[in-house]
């Protein structure tokens, strides 16, 4: 009796499972048919970027533009995927490697070519309609001659010493042009009870603004093939005295009491409070830093000047590589929609709208010229228009620089001398380049 009941239950179960299976598969194929014949399928277009890039390049993510795009293409919904800064590179690399990337990736141009292997992983957009709208095609062209993405701006942000202009004027201080003048300014401020330089070096990425700028400047002016030689293992990082010189000069500021003693406890977010307090005169930063300071404290004037580190050289402003370029991965699910997105954004109207988020020099024909704040306009006139700019070091690197940045912290913590920083980085650099399979390592 029991056995029969068991058998019966088993059969019923099996049949119902089969039925359920058939039912679901039948249903889905019917759905598919409906979609083919009828209305267009709804698509969610994913745009992936780091938190930092969205904060620093607000014009590339103008909400108004995204809304306008969604109105023009009601079947497409744009979704922003934000990654934490420290993990951004590896998240993107992993997604690309596993064939499951977002539909659009926003990344800095040269870094993308090196770290994300754009030529291998992304769609060649050279033939897309938006390329015809570009004011400067050259700047978007990859080393292989193709265009893999779109970026709103031509001019990119500068990096330098951010300073409290009011404080300088009040104390009758001129902008220093050489390192000697710089230390003299520090001495003068220090004697009046002001800490000359605010170091927000708790964040690992902040001090590197000093090195990527000064080293970039040194290479551009004195050893143009330096990065090629380092990347080809023809020379070691500890064999370039000028690199060590810049580190020593920064460390000496700290050692001589020209920076606050708590450099390793204070982070980038503490800059506005410190710089507006009148207790500090200068700090590291970029256009974004100055703009944020001006927005937060409209009553105080802030500005920026190039790092006066190497003696007797002409002043050049270090600019960062072309930032916030949008790429379409080859494995993206919605390549056509992503192309529509780029074509839509590369219109003069969209550039004009994006200017509302932050001013930039647009790379689209017919778009309005930007209305710069005082300081950005002056920097643009003084350095960008006259060609007195050099590209930062980071733009030439093929590996993640985080270890180097950690060694900088070691230096301020007293665990490594500037010389040891460079020799430790030389060893790590070799390991990283080897792991990437780069020749000669």
């Amino acid at each position, binding site marked *: 009796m029991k056995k029969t009941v068991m058998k019966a239950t088993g059969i019923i179960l099996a049949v119902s499972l089969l039925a359920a299976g058939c039912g679901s598969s039948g249903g889905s194929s019917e759905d598919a048919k409906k979609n083919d014949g009828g209305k267009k399928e709804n698509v969610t277009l994913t745009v992936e970027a780091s938190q930092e890039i969205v904060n620093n390049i607000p014009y590339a993510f103008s909400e108004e533009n995204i809304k306008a795009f969604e109105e023009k293409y009601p079947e497409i919904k744009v979704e922003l995927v934000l990654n934490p800064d420290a993990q951004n590179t*590896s998240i993107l690399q992993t997604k690309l490697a596993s064939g499951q990337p977002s539909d659009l990736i926003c990344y800095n141009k040269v870094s993308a070519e090196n770290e994300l292997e754009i030529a291998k992983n992304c769609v060649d957009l050279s033939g897309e309609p938006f390329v015809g709208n570009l004011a400067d095609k050259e700047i978007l062209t990859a080393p292989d001659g193709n265009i893999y993405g779109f970026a709103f701006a031509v001019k990119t942000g500068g990096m330098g010493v951010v300073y409290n202009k009011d404080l300088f004027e009040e104390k009758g201080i001129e902008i220093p042009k050489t390192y000697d003048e710089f230390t003299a300014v520090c001495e003068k401020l220090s004697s009046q009870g002001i800490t000359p330089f605010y170091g927000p070096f*708790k964040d690992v990425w902040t001090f590197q603004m000093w090195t990527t700028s000064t080293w970039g400047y040194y290479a551009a002016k004195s050893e143009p093939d330096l990065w090629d030689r380092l990347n080809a293992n023809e020379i070691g990082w500890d064999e370039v005295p000028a690199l060590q010189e810049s580190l020593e000069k920064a460390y000496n500021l700290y050692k001589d009491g020209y920076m606050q003693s*708590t450099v390793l406890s204070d982070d980038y977010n503490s800059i506005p409070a410190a710089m507006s307090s009148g207790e500090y005169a200068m700090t590291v930063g970029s256009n974004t830093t100055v703009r944020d300071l001006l927005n937060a404290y409209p009553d105080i004037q802030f500005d920026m000047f190039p790092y006066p580190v190497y003696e007797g050289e002409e002043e050049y402003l270090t600019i960062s590589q072309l930032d916030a370029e949008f790429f379409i991965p080859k494995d993206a699910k919605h390549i056509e929609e992503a192309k529509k997105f780029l074509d839509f954004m590369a219109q003069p109207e969209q550039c004009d709208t994006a200017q509302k988020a932050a001013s930039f020099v647009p790379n689209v024909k017919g778009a309005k010229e930007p209305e710069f704040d005082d300081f950005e306009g002056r920097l643009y006139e003084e350095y960008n228009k006259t060609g007195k700019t050099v590209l930062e070091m980071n733009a030439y690197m093929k590996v*993640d620089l*985080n270890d180097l940045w950690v060694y900088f912290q*070691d230096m301020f*913590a007293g*665990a490594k001398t500037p010389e040891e920083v460079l020799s430790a980085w030389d060893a790590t650099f070799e390991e990283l380049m080897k*792991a990437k*399979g780069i020749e000669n390592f």
Partner: protein
Amino acid sequence: MVHAMRRNRHIYTYLLTLPALLLFGIFFVAPSIYGIYYSLTDWTIGKDAISFVGIDNYKTIFQSSELKHAIYNTFLYAVIVVIGKNVNGLLLALAVNTKMKLRGYFRVIFFLPCVISTIIIGLVFVPILHPNGILNDFLGNIGLGFLKQGWLVDTKIVMISIAGVSIWQWSGYHMVVYLAGLQGIPESYYEAAKIDGATAMQRFKSITFPMLAPAFNINMLLSLIGGLKVFSEPYALTNGGPGNASQVIALEVFSKFGRGQWGLGTALNVTLAIFVSIICIPVLYNMRKREVEE
């Protein structure tokens, strides 16, 4: 009849372990073995092909001064927290086991920190331990200015500071385990000892401490494993900084994985597992021996 039942029971047991064994095998044993295999390869993010490199990754670990420093830090941290949590936990347990007013409230208060997420505790303690933070201000105000430290930025004491925060957080947890042990000791033992004229110290030495052995063992083991596998405390407080001063093995594993050095990261992980096993298995073995004796 008895014989049949016994046989039945055997068949029953073995068959029923099969699904569990299968799941355990698929989701634990197999990945672990794979992990050991991958630790012997040069598996990195940019590479299309994974190749076998023998013990190269392990060589890298024991040749790199930074990774050796992380291993040293991990052991240092483990030793400090094992001592700190157990001494503190035991003292707290003894205190709240006495017949005092409000002891229920004290138990709850001491236990509370371990309920809070370590990340939140990190966020709270970073400003407290800032060189111009509450702790240093407090020390200055009560005339102990000479004790002021750069708690989280001085490379010499940063590991001790992190361990201190962890001891603060987890002492209450260990207190509860000790308390359970203490309450399992029959009151009559103490009464007998008192009649025999034993002092408080003697009672602790001859009754409390030996009778607490099981609680002591479990606390030792838990704090030791926790100490060796430490991750969230340094992650929240310093993120391994300043520089590499407070790097521990698990943080290094995290950053190696984050940077796509999967082979090396796996090797580090295997190393950590071996360390934990070498240290904890003998402790566990001893514990079980005691339990059998009791």
